[in-house]
């Protein structure tokens, strides 16, 4: 097993830049997905607590 030199023979910026960008992209996808899931569960809790009659009333306001 060879311990890699961080400078990577002068290519460190390109190699670590590539992997850092990939990591950022993957983390961004995972974070945005978890936010989407959280928003959905919050939305579900809210709509469960609001009676259908209220929703019907608000729909009438917007459509009238």
């Amino acid at each position, binding site marked *: 097993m060879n311990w890699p030199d961080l400078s990577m023979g002068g*290519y460190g910026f390109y190699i670590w830049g590539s992997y850092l*960008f990939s990591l950022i992209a993957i983390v961004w*996808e995972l974070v945005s997905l978890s936010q989407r899931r959280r928003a959905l569960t919050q939305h579900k809790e809210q709509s469960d607590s609001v009676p259908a009659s209220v929703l019907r009333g608000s729909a009438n306001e917007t459509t009238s």
Partner: protein
Amino acid sequence: MFYPIAGKMIPWFAIPATILFAAGMFVGFFIAPADYQQGEAYRIIFIHVPAAWMGMLLYVLMAFYAGIGWAFNARLSSMMASALAITGAMFTLISLVTGAFWGKPTWGTWWVWDARMTSTLILMFLYIGFISLQASIDDPRRADRAGAVLALVGVINIPIIYFSVQWWNTLHQGATIRLLQKPTIRGSMLAALLIMLAACWLYSVAVVLTRLRCIILEREQNASRFAEVGV
């Protein structure tokens, strides 16, 4: 029926994906030797090549599911196509950016309008077009149909990307690993590449299933809200 099964399946893909990412990086950086020509710079391929493959494969899958959803009016299939798009776009973006990081030290330029790179950029635009088109149409079924047309037309770009290095005299190097021929790279390099590819596959399945569950819930919530208010 599908929703709870998908939920149970996600950890079975996410955990091995994490382990394989770590294993692939270990083999790629600690075991695989430096390349005799490119030195250490070649190590970018351990993320660049799997990302490029995933970008193409996920597009084919997206077009397939979108086509099935359109032809048979299968809602789950269309939702699967929508769930695949963002992950496919992300892998294509990774392949473009890491390709630029590889191109600068080896070719002396971040970008050239080479056939392989241009067709990959078109793939990125196709993904963006698919996502934007679906987002711009309120009715989900209409959005699914419009997306399916774009996805199916765009699938012609996949063989162009794959064979571009054979059809044209490109700056991008030819294939090192082919299905029916012996690979021309060292075993440890190939192992790192294949482990990273497996990790990307498992990651994609986990993320796409999670997103698919979100899409199913979103559509159900919208439908039930409309039903409740009698719209």
